[in-house]
């Protein structure tokens, strides 16, 4: 870079600093709560990051976090307004409480305010980490979410780990034994597991191993009771990863650089597990990122069948109880997790495949 361009860049940097300081000062004085002020500062820093970070990964991460914040906001808005568009409210039941009680309840949950104000009040709470309290149980939503997420994450963590490890192994085995018995068996079962919906699989597992054979207990906190839901949860993603790995492994094994590696005298096992697998991983990572988010937050179906009390169950209960804060809380939590997982998988992508250019 020559001097003129450098001084140009410096000028831009100084101008941007001044502008953002002014915005920040104005925001600090006008915004009512501390967390909003902090949020503003973070957003300004991120914008500065997208413009002035010298390496493209840094710029990309800043840009993605900004976009993630906007995404979560939009999702919150859509959930909030569509939920309110449905007729009825959390307290309209067959045995409706008296008008006076209803009024007090509505006052407490700000349901008597106009919609826009309700939304803003909710966001204000959210910024302070306050997910509000459940209209059904009266408990803090954040407590419920974190308690149930602990169960879902344990289930999902095991399921995802097993799915990835087994998927990669089976996929490689199938690719290396193409059109032989091992390949045929693996492909038969993975096709089966992809095709059978998880609620049927979950119900079958529950029926056979729990009720008929009695090998595993009905869901409790014991480790043993995690086995069946983990299996039900991991079968389909494992099969999908197996098939993806097989296809991409076969593609990679036919590439010229594999021939180069063999011509160099690289050991056959190293050719496969170093030279081929790293390339074959690239399409798998694209799938694994969102899958992790999906599995970690708990499949609603599998969790409901096994009555695990995880996040998925709570989400479904929230919807059927028309528990506005519960639905909002879980949705925002899931959205944040999903966005984070996608971002992480994109960054891992860059680590595995240096050709990826974020700009």
């Amino acid at each position, binding site marked *: 870079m020559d001097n003129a361009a450098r001084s140009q860049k410096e000028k831009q940097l100084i101008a941007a600093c001044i502008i953002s300081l002014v915005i920040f000062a104005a925001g600090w004085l006008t915004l009512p709560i501390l967390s909003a002020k902090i949020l503003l500062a973070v957003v300004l820093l991120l914008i500065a990051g997208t413009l002035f970070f010298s390496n493209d990964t840094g710029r990309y991460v800043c840009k993605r976090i900004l976009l993630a914040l906007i995404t979560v906001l939009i999702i919150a808005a859509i959930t909030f307004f569509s939920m309110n568009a449905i007729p009825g409210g959390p307290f309209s039941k067959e045995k409706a409480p008296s008008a006076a009680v209803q009024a007090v309840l509505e006052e407490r949950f700000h349901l008597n305010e106009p919609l826009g104000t309700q939304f803003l009040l909710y966001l204000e709470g959210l910024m302070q980490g306050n997910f509000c309290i459940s209209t059904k149980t009266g408990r803090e939503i954040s407590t419920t979410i974190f308690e149930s997420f602990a169960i879902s994450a344990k289930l999902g963590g095991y399921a995802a780990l097993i799915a990835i490890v087994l998927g990669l192994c089976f996929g490689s085995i199938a690719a290396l034994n193409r059109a032989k018995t091992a390949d045929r068996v693996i492909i038969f079962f993975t096709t089966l597991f992809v095709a059978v919906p998880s609620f049927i699989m979950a119900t079958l597992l529950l029926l056979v191993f729990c009720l008929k054979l009695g090998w595993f207990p009905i869901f409790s906190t014991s480790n043993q009771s995690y086995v069946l839901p983990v299996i039900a949860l991991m079968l389909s993603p494992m099969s999908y990863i197996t098939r993806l790995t097989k296809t991409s492994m076969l593609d990679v094994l*036919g*590439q*010229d*650089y594999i*021939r*180069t*590696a*063999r*011509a*160099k*005298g*690289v*050991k*056959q096992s190293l050719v496969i597990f170093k*030279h081929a697998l*790293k*390339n074959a991983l690239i399409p798998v990572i694209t799938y694994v990122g969102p899958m992790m988010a999906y599995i970690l937050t708990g499949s609603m179906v599998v969790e409901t069948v096994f009555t695990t009390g995880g996040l998925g169950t709570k989400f479904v209960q929230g919807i059927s109880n028309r528990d506005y804060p519960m639905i909002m809380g879980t949705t925002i939590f899931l959205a944040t997790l999903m966005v984070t997982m996608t971002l992480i998988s994109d960054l891992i992508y860059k680590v*595995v*495949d*240096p*050709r990826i250019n974020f700009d």
Partner: protein
Amino acid sequence: MSNVPLLQVKNLHTSFITDAGEVKAVNGISYNLDRGKVLGIVGESGSGKSVSAYSVMRILTDTGRVTQGEVLFNGEDILKYTPQQMQSFRGSRISMIFQDPMTCLNPVFTVGSQLREAIRIHTDRTKEQINARALEMLQLVGVNEPEKRLRQYPHELSGGMRQRVMIAMALACEPDILIADEPTTALDVTIQAQILELMQNLQKKMGMAIIMITHDLGVIADICDEIIVMYAGKVCERGTADEIFYNPRHEYTKGLIRSIPRVTEKHEKLVPIAGSPVDLLNLPKGCAFASRCECAMKICLTEQPEETWVNDSHIAACWNNVKRMYEESKGGEAR
């Protein structure tokens, strides 16, 4: 041992087993390669020139099999080597560079790590020595800013640069033979000349023998000591570069030479060889080239021509050559 050629290929047959049947890619080729010599193998796509080289390296794909023949390196049959022996043999005694440098380097590892791997496999040097050797090799093949290149990924290098890296990788362990499978085909013309010159210089410096595989006779005219012309997995003609260019005896060789563009003759149209290559699934009974040959005779369609010696360095497998030599010998007697 001195009179044993470095590499002897004897009656090599290679086939690919496919669903459609056995594809006979190489049908009995033989040649010798002496230490420090350059052998050119010429032929069109599908003539079996690359497959014959892969057979020597034993890096055929799963469906490929060497069905017959011997490959003797210093008198030892490497087709009988165990996979472990073969691993330490490849890259250290014979190494290979390929046609398309854009796809031959692994895209997810740095140039340095691939180069160092090639050195590490065959030597027990320390990390520093390996690094130094990698740097030295890059300098030797004329890569600019070698320290920076070691840290870069293949996609950050140009095609010519990548081919230089491939050459550095192949020569890092000072092999006795370098097999170059169409090393310049995927490069543009100015780079082609540079790469060929580089290979010639390196050959002078390091003294390895080269097997140069190409479909372009023009490319190998100056650098080869001996040339083999292949068609349908067989040797059509074998001889010194001069004999092939100035005294071609096989009709296919003549056709190839007619199809080289010449700078000296203006406005002359190139003469292509009509027709398309034979179906390797069903080889014809007679000469494989007969259906495309302008001078085909009856015997060409029914009987395979045998290799006949024109002189002690020149072989041709063509009935027209047999006829010509017969006529010449009769003419000689009559005189």
